[in-house]
């Protein structure tokens, strides 16, 4: 039974007359950047839902993906990944009241351009379409992936001076998406080869540390859980927790942020890292200790959950709220689905009670992996009419109507060229719903 309701808030205007791929909220400003197949990036205000800037003239083909650089001071830095195989870096001075802005040696029409995003450098190297681009949470690294099956990691040594630190060629097919772990320099990539791969720096080389096989079709999008979500999601409500629930929370803490993935196989899955320290004895886990590497950087990621299947076509995008832990998915069937994680009811349920007994006896409980369950909290059909929805993302609500500082909206991006904002509201349970 749904407990949330997705309601239309606004359609960002003007809409594009060609397909839009992805919309990414600015890390600090009330802005959202939309990657568009008309070779532009459109930057909208999240306060007025209107177009502020159209970044054009850089790419020769569709801009497929964008990423805002985190922690920038006095300027906004946007990275764009395009089907023209190049990535662009764009800057715009954000003029705060204290900003001393000097201009010299520039002619008049350039002065007007100060308002615009300035192209500042290009990253060449991929042979084919770039599918995804994303800054690491520290802003030190930029990851790109491409149809050329490779994942590149770039390091910005100083402004506009990028170095290629790794070219990872583990995937056998088109790489659809890259994502960074929120706390560690750990990169994940998802591919048409149905796998998710994780990479980490070992000595001075980035190497694959894990390959997750679990989806049976193309993995379109991956996203890590936010940092410190234990304080915000279902785990936040303390008190009256059972022994094993407390153990489960501890396990999640040691695992760190989880990874969500969505696929052509119409499923959304959650993956959790097996904690390394004491994994062999304390938890009595069956994992065979690595005989291959003496000092292993390998990680083991296990399936934590398969979310209820509500999409009947490709799921293109997922977004894991940093505020609430709610997960949103969208895809080819035009639906937006919101999922919520909660404790499984244990006492009243005879099936899980057996698992509890095992834990009490000190033997590993298979059911421990399923201490929680994901339920569908809201569903919205035909979010973009008959069109596919390419992307949906949680964003901070900034318009006048917002009800609290923490309120979040969902912004969806569709094949119809529209970018839509949606509110997510609690609904009173109704009989027969």
């Amino acid at each position, binding site marked *: 039974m749904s407990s949330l309701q997705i309601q239309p808030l606004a359609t960002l205007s003007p809409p594009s007359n*060609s*397909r839009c791929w992805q919309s990414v909220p600015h890390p600090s400003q009330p802005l959202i950047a939309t990657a568009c*197949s008309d070779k532009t990036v459109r930057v909208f205000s999240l306060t007025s839902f209107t177009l502020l800037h159209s970044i054009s*003239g*850089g*790419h020769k083909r*569709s801009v497929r993906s964008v990423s805002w650089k985190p922690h920038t001071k006095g*300027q906004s830095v946007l990275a764009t990944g395009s*089907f023209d195989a*190049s990535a*662009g870096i*764009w*800057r715009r001075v954000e003029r705060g009241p204290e900003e001393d802005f000097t201009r010299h040696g*520039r002619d008049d029409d350039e002065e007007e*351009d100060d308002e*615009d995003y*300035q*192209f500042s*450098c*290009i990253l*060449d190297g991929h*042979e*084919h*379409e770039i599918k995804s681009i994303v800054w690491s949470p520290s802003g030190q690294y930029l990851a790109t992936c491409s*149809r*050329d099956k490779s994942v590149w990691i770039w390091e910005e*040594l*100083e*402004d506009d*001076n*990028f*170095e*290629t*630190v790794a*070219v*990872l*060629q*583990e995937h*056998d*097919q*088109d790489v659809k998406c890259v994502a960074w772990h929120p706390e560690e320099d750990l990169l994940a990539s998802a591919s*048409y*080869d149905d796998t998710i791969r994780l990479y980490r720096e070992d000595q*001075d*080389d980035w*190497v*694959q540390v894990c390959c997750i096989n679990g989806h049976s079709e193309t993995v379109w999008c991956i996203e890590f859980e936010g940092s410190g979500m234990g304080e915000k999601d279902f785990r936040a409500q303390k008190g009256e927790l059972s022994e094993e629930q407390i153990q489960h929370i501890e396990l999640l803490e040691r695992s760190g942020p989880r990874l969500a993935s969505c696929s052509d196989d119409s499923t959304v899955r959650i993956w959790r890292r097996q904690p390394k320290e004491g994994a062999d004895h304390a938890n009595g886990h069956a994992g065979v200790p690595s*005989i*291959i*590497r003496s*000092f*292993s950087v*390998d990680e083991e990621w296990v399936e934590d959950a398969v979310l209820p299947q509500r999409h009947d*076509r490709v799921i293109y995008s997922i977004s894991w709220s940093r505020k609430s832990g709610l997960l949103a998915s969208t895809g*080819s069937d035009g639906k937006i689905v919101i999922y919520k994680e909660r404790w499984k009811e244990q006492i009243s349920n005879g099936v899980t009670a057996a698992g509890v007994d095992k834990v009490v006896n000190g033997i590993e409980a298979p059911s421990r992996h399923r201490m929680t369950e994901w339920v569908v909290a809201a569903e919205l059909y035909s979010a973009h009419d*008959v*069109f*596919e929805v390419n992307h949906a993302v949680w964003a901070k609500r900034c318009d006048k109507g917002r009800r609290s500082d923490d309120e979040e909206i969902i912004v969806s991006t569709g*094949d119809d*060229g529209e970018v839509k904002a949606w509110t997510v509201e609690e609904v009173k349970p109704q009989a027969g719903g």
Partner: protein
Amino acid sequence: MSAILSADDLNDFISPGVACIKPIETLPAHPPESNSNAYEVTTEEHATASQPRTPAQISLTDCLACSGCVTSAEAVLVQLQSHNEVLSTLDAHPSLRTPWLAHNGTNGKLNNILNGVNGHYQQEGKLFVASVSPQTRASLAALFSVSEVEAGNMINQLLSGASGLRASGVHGSDFTWVIDTNIVREACLVAAADEVASTLSPDVTPSSSTGFEGAIDTTPKQPILTSACPGWICYAEKTHPEILPHLSRLKSPQALTGTLLKSVLSQRYNVPPSQIWHLAIMPCFDKKLEASRSELTSTAWLPNHDTTHDPVRDVDCVITARELLHLASARNISFSSLPRSPLPSSSRIPFPDPSIDAFLFPPRRKNQSVLAGPSGGYMYHILRTYQAQHPGSEISESPGRNADVVVYSLTQGSKSIIKTARYYGFRNIQNLVRGLKPAKVSKLPGARMGVSRRPGGSSAAARESVKDYAYVEVMACPGGCTNGGGQIKVSEVEEVRALEGIQSVNRETTVGRPGLTEQKEWLRRVDEAYFSGSDEESADEDGDLNMVEPEASKLNGLLDEDVVNGISRSYIHNMISHWSGITGVSTQDLLYTSYRKVESDVGKKKQSDVERVAGLASALGGGW
């Protein structure tokens, strides 16, 4: 589902244009699986996917060898070069023995004979010659736990010995000569140092009579970049044409060996190039591509080349260590049981020209010192050449961002004489290439130029440093040529040893996919074998940096200016002029080659008629 789906954006799907040559290399051993998904375009992809994953370090080179670099025509040429090709050629032709004794010709007579030999005669016999890279010997040495010299002897025994290929086959054909490419490399090293000197010389005029930037008669721009690595050349020609003016014009040791053999034997001893069959055994699949270059054929050096004759390649076939083992087993020869001793000197057939014979078959074999690195030691030789010319100068080494980048500078007191660097591996090549790009080119055309908010720019300074190098030894493979794509991989070691019927020497048996540690350990052993032939002390097992100290006295000692690193410049110069003299070919045509921008149609979609019509229709407001 989408109503506005347009052909322009059908890019989330693999198209046949993105075929990779990796499958070509592996297809013979792994036929495509039949259960491939109909939606996936190439069955080759599945052949690749179904194999155990290539260790990460090695697979980095694959990007250099993939779709963007190889046209289908080239792919066919590469495919033709296999151990089967070697076997069928040996079976099709008897060995041509000492033909120069039969006709003692001169330059003048050559062309007549060449034209006369059209047809039947050509088919009769071939003079089989092989050249073997030191990295291949090192790979086999590590595999069979023998010394590099012994591995070389085993190869000689296979190719020329009584118990080798000669023992079977239709004609009992075998190889008349087996040449160590290290020997010919000495000529490359001296010429490379000369090339750097001419580039750095103040009165250099970088103009070309033919007018294109990669031409044979241009002096390369500083920094000169090594051109001996075919993967790198392939990538540069197809992806970074702006780099071509920097490429060394020098032929690789493989190519130079071919030119030397074919030019001398044809111009002086009347063996037409087409009757000389030159096999190279190399650490690298991309050497097959190099052998297929139209620049490296008889056309380049035959005077008065008759265009009605097909150009003959300087290197007819390239195989790798693994393929050499296939070659042996195809003739039921167990490579591991071949004698490890050298061939008896009585059976040696001298090269007809005594000077070149002395050059090609010196009594003492020399190998690279550890400091020269695993890829032939170009940069090191250049440094040492400059050091010899500047008494009292010192070489200092500074490690780069990773193990595959090292920067060297030669200083005399406070004065910097020359700076060089080593850039191995694809990711480092990216940074090198980016550093060499003129600033303007790196901007997106048509975009509004941003104004750098940081004046002056320390980034500009960082880019300058790459341009400051006189020479950069560029190799596509991380770890250099001993880690070449054609070397026996750590994952193959047990399998090959089992096939050869030998036990693993170490008790460690790798289970499943070997990890990075095993990879590095295997590479260390190949490196150890590679450097073991050195007449200086053998490789320190702990790695490179430690070796600088004990070597320092040797490195910085006073050296005879002529003899650099054991190679006499004047001897090499004399040999080259002798070569040019007896063949009547200019040294430029013998030693140098050219590069060209290659236009790839990969990724540039060719519009089909349907798409064009559809485009027109939608432009007119219509639609399908």
